[in-house]
């Protein structure tokens, strides 16, 4: 699979993606290629389909129409083993979703042990390296209930990284955090971006978008309205809906 990447194939290719919930149209035709090492920041008003798009990419939602290819493998195809694809696609959620009955360490080691059949010792060693990376090595034996929101979210990032994903999806990961805890999570993500991780980041953190994003996508009503360099779009949004959105949020900054 790595070889296909070298030949210039996109990490993620989304073709004509549609998603309906009953009569509600969440996604109305998305076409998007994400190249390796890109950090794509996805912004847009709530209900614009950003989260739905992320959830379609790793199969948490089933596409109504269209195709999604991860490293050339069609996620929407019935014969595709979605579990294999998910090993390559890490996801971090707004509500952390740590496993409350397991310690931070066990949260990180569970999937490598059960899915990759890694030995306990190997998984532990790897988990400690990752927890150290997110600055929480000393919290390895703490249960989620005893961690702050920011710490929980950083454990959740370590948990996703433990599967050695090629792409990371971040779904409004700082929206549920107290303001003073946002930066510690963003710093972790920044570090990840600098290491060359391919990332799709749904966020309202415009500072992060400008500083870390290599590409910005503005979505509204289930379609990609604008797509380009973050700074350029901030300074000179082309589409009226983008202009409207930025004028509203920038007035708060």
């Amino acid at each position, binding site marked *: 699979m790595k070889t296909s990447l070298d030949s210039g194939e996109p990490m993620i290719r989304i073709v004509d993606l549609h998603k309906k919930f009953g009569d509600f149209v969440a996604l109305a035709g998305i076409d998007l290629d994400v190249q390796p090492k890109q950090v794509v920041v996805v912004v847009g008003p709530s209900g614009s389909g950003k989260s739905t798009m992320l959830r379609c990419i790793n199969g948490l939602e089933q596409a109504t129409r269209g195709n999604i290819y991860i490293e050339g493998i069609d996620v929407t195809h019935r014969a595709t083993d979605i*579990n294999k694809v*998910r090993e390559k696609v890490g996801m971090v959620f707004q509500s952390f979703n740590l*496993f409350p*009955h397991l310690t931070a360490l066990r949260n990180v080691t*569970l999937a490598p042990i059960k899915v990759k059949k890694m030995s306990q010792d190997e998984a532990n060693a790897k988990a400690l390296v990752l927890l150290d990376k997110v600055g929480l090595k000393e919290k390895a034996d703490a249960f989620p209930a005893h961690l702050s929101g920011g710490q929980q979210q950083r454990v959740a990032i370590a948990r996703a990284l433990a599967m050695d994903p090629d792409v990371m999806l971040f779904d409004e990961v700082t929206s549920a955090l107290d303001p003073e805890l946002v930066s510690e999570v963003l710093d972790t993500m920044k570090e990840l971006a600098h290491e060359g991780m391919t990332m799709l980041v749904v966020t309202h953190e415009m500072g992060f978008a400008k500083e870390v994003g290599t590409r910005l996508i503005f979505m509204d009503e289930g379609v990609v309205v604008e797509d380009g360099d973050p700074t350029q779009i901030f300074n000179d949004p082309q589409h009226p809906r983008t202009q409207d959105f930025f004028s509203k949020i920038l007035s708060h900054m």
Partner: protein
Amino acid sequence: MSDAIELNPEGQMLSEFEKPDVSGWAKASLIMGILGLTALPVVGAILAIVFARIAKRRILLDDALAGDGLATAGQTLGVIGLLLAGLAIFILLMQQRLHDFIVDFFNWDTIKFWWPKVGRAFLTTLKLAVVSEFFILLVGLFVALLRISKLKIFRFIATVYIDVIRGLPLILQIFIIYFGLSYLGLNLSRFAAGAVALTVCYAAYEAEIFRAGIESIHKGQMEASRSLGMTYLQSMGYVVLPQAIRRVIPPLSNEFIMLTKDTALVAFIGLSEAFLVGKEGMGRDANVTPLVGVALFFLLVTIPAMRVVQYLEVRLSKGD
């Protein structure tokens, strides 16, 4: 030094000398109370209460009178005396009936002969309850998983099973399953047939408890687990169920207590558990004592079990 200062004012000195008199009625009440318990039953007790009332009213109106405590003591003795007298009269009047009651419900000879037998049979009761519960938990969990399956056919099967079982009296199911099994050519022992019947019935109830427990776990848990590449069953087994089971331990324990009691119904297909043996004893000796023994054995287990469940409820709710 402070004593000297306090003694100086005239008012203080006076009150020292004018110690209030203890009401004579209060003293009389106490004496009558004592008499009411000894030499002069009923009359003494009534007088003690009457005197105490008079004493209390006087003490209330007159600041110079004391003895409220004495009056209360007399009153209390009077009430106790009256109750004892009443009890004595009751026993006297109902002597024959009480005697009959003890002979019928707590007959010493019957106790000696039948309670050990009942006790041994109660071990069968407990064994039936434990063996059944083991299979109930397995089947119940399995049915719960069918009930929440994505496949309509599984959900349908589970729903029909749960509805039918919950819509029938247990005793009816026990008979139908017992005779149904032998009709199918399965010649199970009475114990095994009883265990099957109880499992079929209780699994339906426990399936619903499991389902409620599983559904109470936020769906983000399943999503997070699935997004790590774990299969549905892995996610269930390692992430959702460990949390769900913790939550349903108290209701499941309650079900287990109910099951223990309901094993008595298996007597109707002839398994010699505690109730059947007790009933047999009742028939042989024309005496209720064996059944009282059965009742006591059940309480010996169920009451502590209920306390344990209560403790678990408090403990586990704190853990969340």
